[in-house]
């Protein structure tokens, strides 16, 4: 079965992104396919390359990267949600005349069309939200 995961929860302030990561791992472990993980609204903060965590805590952005590398996952960060919150790749940094960029390797910026495609391609779409 093909799954798509939508992450609207930020990596630190709420538990939703952690639940999404665990759920994605369980989907893959059960032998199912993950078509895409789409990070939307405050969930885009999962795509930062600049978060530094205490040594005894796990870094969600790093875990997403590792999982994506292992399973060749498509990690898409909503471009409109990201640029307004200060998550940019090199291309967007140039477009907006920023000197720096911070989108982590393994993530890509794309539009809501990818979200529509995500919903159309998957047998199940599961959303993980914040505020918890």
């Amino acid at each position: 079965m093909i799954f798509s995961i939508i992450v609207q929860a930020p990596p630190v302030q709420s538990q939703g992104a952690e639940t999404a990561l665990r759920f994605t791992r369980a989907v893959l472990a059960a032998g199912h396919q993950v078509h895409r993980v789409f990070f939307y609204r405050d969930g885009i903060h999962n795509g930062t390359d600049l978060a530094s965590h205490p040594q005894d805590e796990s870094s969600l952005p790093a875990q997403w990267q590792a999982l994506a590398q292992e399973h060749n996952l498509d990690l898409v960060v909503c471009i409109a949600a990201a640029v307004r919150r200060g998550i940019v790749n090199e291309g967007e940094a140039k477009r907006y005349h920023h000197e720096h960029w911070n989108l982590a390797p393994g993530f890509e910026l794309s539009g809501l069309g990818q979200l529509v495609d995500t919903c159309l391609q998957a047998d199940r779409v599961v959303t993980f939200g914040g505020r918890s």
Partner: protein
Amino acid sequence: MILHTLNQGPGNPALLENCLTAMTATDTLLLIEDGIYWSLPAYADTLARVPGRVQALESDLTARGIKTALTTVDDTGFVELTINHDKVVSWF
């Protein structure tokens, strides 16, 4: 057959009320994250009004030190629930 996930506790009673309005008898409510707190004995009357089945995510119960008489599922069981239902609605 819809699986509803709910991740907020009694601090946001409106969220559960909205979920109950949308649920039917063939649906399942899965309590996750802070939604786990609805399984405390103090809220038994509220949970009794859920029209369908109620289950709770094991790891979130363990993280909060709560034991419940509800059916529990681990992450693998969560995935199976999403497959056994036609679609998933997330309340957050």
